[in-house]
């Protein structure tokens, strides 16, 4: 499949401020592609460059192989769904939906027919005569999608369209959006600062920070193989140990940290090693990769059973810690531990297997993790909490 939307060396500046820096992205026809990043990192700006409301200061945006320079938003094969939807409040639902057809001079009968089809698609049949203000949040959401789809774009651009909805509806709309995308088969470019949305819906995710693309990949590789400290700290939860690299090879890095000597995977970036002996490094370990290790802990029964259930058997790294607090979340136990020399409490998640944890606050424990489940990265900017 060909690249449908391509950004080559795109820079966007507002005066001295650089909102997008050397962006190179290739999005394939028919894929669900997300830009994920914290507020203000330049996601909307990039989307506006694709939709044509903004000309990049430098670089090239092409859609379907065609250079888009000088082509206005009304002439591009894109349709944008705005962060606040921007439905037309003085038109009925069906007039909203078929506005793009009205623009092209379609007759009233044809428009009504198309409106009914699209209302069917978004599961609002027969609601065309209502005014937008008479719809619920989720229904408005779907009308906005239908209005954009009526333009028959080859690329649909969505700017955080779910952010105004409550959690339940948001989760429902995720599934819905994905289903609609599969049905219509066009490229979706989706912007969000919610990693859950990005990971669940997308074929590929680009993680952004301060106008720079930090990493592009599918959800699995973004979560499991972060290539920068920003990605590791922004996507999902991660425990962080900072230290100095003692030794490296292609596969693993050994880092001396206040918590002891830690061994972790050596994360490559663009096929290149990122760390050498003497560098400052962060070691990231996910809460679910941490285990209670047998040893210093006195409550041995559950601990050894958890350890035994881990696939690799013996753990590569061990850290002495003290339980600060534990939270029961039904399917999970969240355990927060103090580790000497580490500022932020270390968090450990355990599946609730029915047995009680058998540990309490203040207890000295040993935490362990396998080198394969931890990653060492050069020190760099971290995502804000």
């Amino acid at each position, binding site marked *: 499949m060909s690249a449908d939307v391509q950004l080559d060396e795109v820079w966007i500046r507002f005066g001295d401020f650089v909102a997008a820096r050397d962006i190179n992205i290739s999005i394939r026809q028919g894929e669900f592609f997300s830009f994920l990043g914290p507020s203000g990192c330049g996601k909307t700006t990039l989307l506006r460059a694709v939709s044509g409301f903004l000309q990049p200061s430098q670089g090239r945006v092409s859609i379907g192989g065609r250079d888009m320079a000088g082509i206005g938003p009304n002439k591009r094969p894109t349709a944008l769904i705005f962060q606040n939807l921007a439905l037309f409040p*003085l038109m009925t639902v069906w007039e909203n939906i078929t506005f793009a057809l009205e623009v092209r001079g379609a007759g009233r009968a044809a428009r009504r027919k198309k409106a009914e089809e699209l209302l069917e698609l978004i599961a609002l049949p027969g609601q065309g005569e209502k005014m937008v203000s008479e719809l619920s949040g989720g229904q408005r959401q779907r009308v906005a999608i239908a209005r954009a789809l009526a333009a028959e774009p080859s690329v649909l651009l969505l700017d955080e369209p779910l952010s105004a909805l409550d959690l339940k509806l948001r989760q429902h709309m995720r599934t819905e959006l994905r289903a609609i995308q599969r049905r219509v088969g066009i490229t979706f470019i989706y912007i969000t600062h919610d990693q859950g949305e990005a990971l669940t819906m997308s074929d590929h995710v680009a993680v952004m920070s301060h106008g720079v693309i930090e990493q592009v990949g599918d959800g699995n590789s973004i979560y499991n193989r972060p290539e920068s400290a920003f990605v590791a700290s922004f996507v999902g939860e991660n425990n962080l140990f900072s230290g100095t690299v003692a030794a490296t090879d292609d596969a693993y890095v050994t880092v001396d940290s206040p918590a002891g000597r830690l061994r972790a995977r050596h994360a490559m970036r663009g096929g290149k090693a990122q760390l050498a002996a003497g560098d400052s490094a962060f070691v990231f370990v996910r809460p679910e990769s941490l285990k209670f290790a047998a040893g210093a802990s006195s409550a041995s029964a559950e601990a050894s059973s958890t350890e035994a259930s881990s696939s690799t058997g013996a753990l590569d790294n061990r850290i002495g810690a003290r339980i600060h607090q534990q939270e029961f979340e039904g399917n999970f136990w969240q355990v927060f531990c103090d580790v000497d020399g580490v500022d932020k409490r270390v968090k450990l998640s355990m599946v609730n297997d029915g047995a009680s944890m058998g540990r309490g606050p203040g207890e000295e424990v040993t935490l362990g993790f396998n080198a394969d489940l931890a990653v060492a990265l050069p020190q760099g900017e971290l995502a804000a909490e």
Partner: protein
Amino acid sequence: MFAYWQNFFRKHGAALSVFLLASVGFWIFMMILLPQAFMLDFSLRANVPPPKWGSDAHHYTAEHYRYMLYGSAQSVDSYNFVDLSVFARTIVAAIFVTLIDLALCYPVAYYLAHAATGGWRRLMVLSLIVPFWVNELLRAFAFKIMFGGNGIINNALLWLGVIDQPYDFIRNSVALYSGLSYAYILLMIFPIYNAVESLDRNQIEAARDLGSPWWRIHKRVVIPHAKPGITSGCTMVFMLTAGALAAPQILGGPSSLWFTQIIYQAFNQAGNWARGSAYAIILLVVCILFVLLMMRVFKVKLGEIAR
């Protein structure tokens, strides 16, 4: 209703409530209702000099309204073409001026609200407002000088070679229409500006993104949204233009009489207060009916204008 007033009193306290009600009541009654009631009363009575006011001679009659139609208090043989044609011309000209102002002000208001930024916008607003510090008479005379035979406009056109002898802007009413259009321009710009400014910019962009050319964006998105502002601007400009006196007096050509000038003459030159009142009432009622009719045609509700 009772609950509303109870709540009103509780919210503002007794003293303030009484003051608010009394002052609003005083305003409405003394400043608006009472004078108009006197006018109405006057217009329906015979024309007698002040010493006889209240006497039998000051009886009720519809003769002044009939005079407007037939030019005489008794006969109905011929119409009063002089007054009626001035009246009609005044209304048509006021409509015309309103349309000119609308055509001029809508783009300016839109530009101010959605395209101009920061200092440039402030500069534009200031340059709209500041000329209105100059009083109305002075402005009218300035127009007269500008449009006069030796005025700057004629001189410029002569110098450019567009014309080879001075054009009589005054006699041809160009000066009058220009002066009237300019006189109430702010009353058109600001209501439209307020209405357009409250439009979410994303709606304009959404329409554009869906392929709409600029004119359709205005037709389908901006104008429907700005309709209350447009209506209130048009209403004010129309009413004030139809009721203008200074500009027609100063800028009008010798042959073009404004209806207000006839009213003025009735009061001040003919000493016929009754007829003046009747004519003023006619102007007022016709203007109000016309505005209400237009609001019905364009489907605007009175409440929307006040938004």
